[in-house]
């Protein structure tokens, strides 16, 4: 089947199998490998992207379901003036170690801040409940999101 999906502002059209998952469409068809597949069971959140502005786990969405929609991946966050505030927050506050979960963390945090520009620590922890990190113990990730909230938010 043919799908037309706008990714990071760029329209894409491709002939795909109906069973193709959005995560694989991004990685294998568009070569946007910033979206990571971790658990592949909609648990770990590494594959989180924004689908029409809403955070979803792209390992549990068919490319067919995203037909006609707009997707934002980690590659779409940085602008001409550099990293997005959330990306910069992770850099400033050492919100990553191995980096595998980071794209999903950053996308989930971006979605959180677009809904709640000034979240409490508990709201950050609840907002990132669907994203697992095995390196940092989460404390620095929470601090990264707090940094982002104070320095430009979801932009």
């Amino acid at each position, binding site marked *: *089947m043919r799908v037309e999906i706008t990714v990071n502002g760029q329209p894409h059209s491709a002939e795909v*199998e*109906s*069973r193709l*998952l959005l995560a694989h469409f991004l990685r294998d068809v568009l070569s946007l490998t910033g979206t990571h597949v971790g658990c*592949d*069971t*909609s*648990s770990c*959140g590494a594959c*989180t992207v924004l689908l029409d502005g*809403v*955070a*979803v*786990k792209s390992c*549990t*969405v*068919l490319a*067919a*379901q995203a*037909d006609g929609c707009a997707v934002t991946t980690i590659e779409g966050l940085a602008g001409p003036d550099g990293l997005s505030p959330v990306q910069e927050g992770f850099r400033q506050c050492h919100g990553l170690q191995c980096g595998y979960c980071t794209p999903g963390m950053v996308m*989930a945090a971006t*979605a*959180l801040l677009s809904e709640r520009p000034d979240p409490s620590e508990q709201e950050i922890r*609840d*907002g990132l*409940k*669907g*994203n697992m990190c095995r390196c940092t113990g989460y404390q620095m990730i929470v601090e990264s999101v707090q940094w982002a909230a104070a320095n430009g938010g979801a932009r």
Partner: protein
Amino acid sequence: MIPAGFSYVRAGSVQEALDELARHGGAARLLAGGHSLLPAMKLRRAEPGVLVDIGRLGELSYVRVDGDRIAVGALTSHRTLERDPLVAEHVPLLAAAACRIGDPQVRNRGTIGGSLAHADPAADLAAAVLALDGVLVARGPSGVREIPAREFFTGPRRSALAADEMLTEIRLPAAGGLPYAFEKFSRRALDWAVVGVAVQSRPGGGAAVALIGMGPTPLRATAVEEALAAGTPAAEAAGLASRGCEPPDNVVASSAYRAHLAEVLVGRALTAL
């Protein structure tokens, strides 16, 4: 993990979805948010030949007051239930259960109709809908019928829905202002409940108590309800939580542990009222 191959059809209306179900017999499955069905397909526990995507039927996503009941469209997302002002006012137990499902990404995609139709014995919303004495509205080739929640769940991931029917609405008696509680125990933050309980106080006294993870279907703890109605103190009534239940005994938890959890969680829920 990749699902087995299937044909994909996007329905433009409820009637189109029903036509597709009728055309393909039992080979077709409805795809709503996909957060129960797609994981099952990736594990090859489900291999439908046809997926009928109803995810864009916006007319099935709503919450409205319908006389003394609240009508919830089958495609209403968990995220919407969490935040909807009518849900908060009239059936807050539903919001209390919805906000405990999975995580934000899952709640963005998952729908109440999809969750109920999947009929998992540990589904949070099933407990809430059972405790609220909800009615599920199914549409099929021969028209519309109402199925009481207590008759809807027939086995693990089995329901009273026929293969050519779809859930369109959930009707819940308004329970605004009445005490309620939702408790569940999970091994990790975003896991399914090992055991969960939803309690809804009744206008005339007593309470409805629904359990998940305590049998092949979500179920009502009738022994607890009868004890409460007879004036038994909550702590004592909670001790009857596992009576008549046959909780599963598996790698997640033993049946004895589940029975213990049920008593503790029902006790907490009744105390919280």
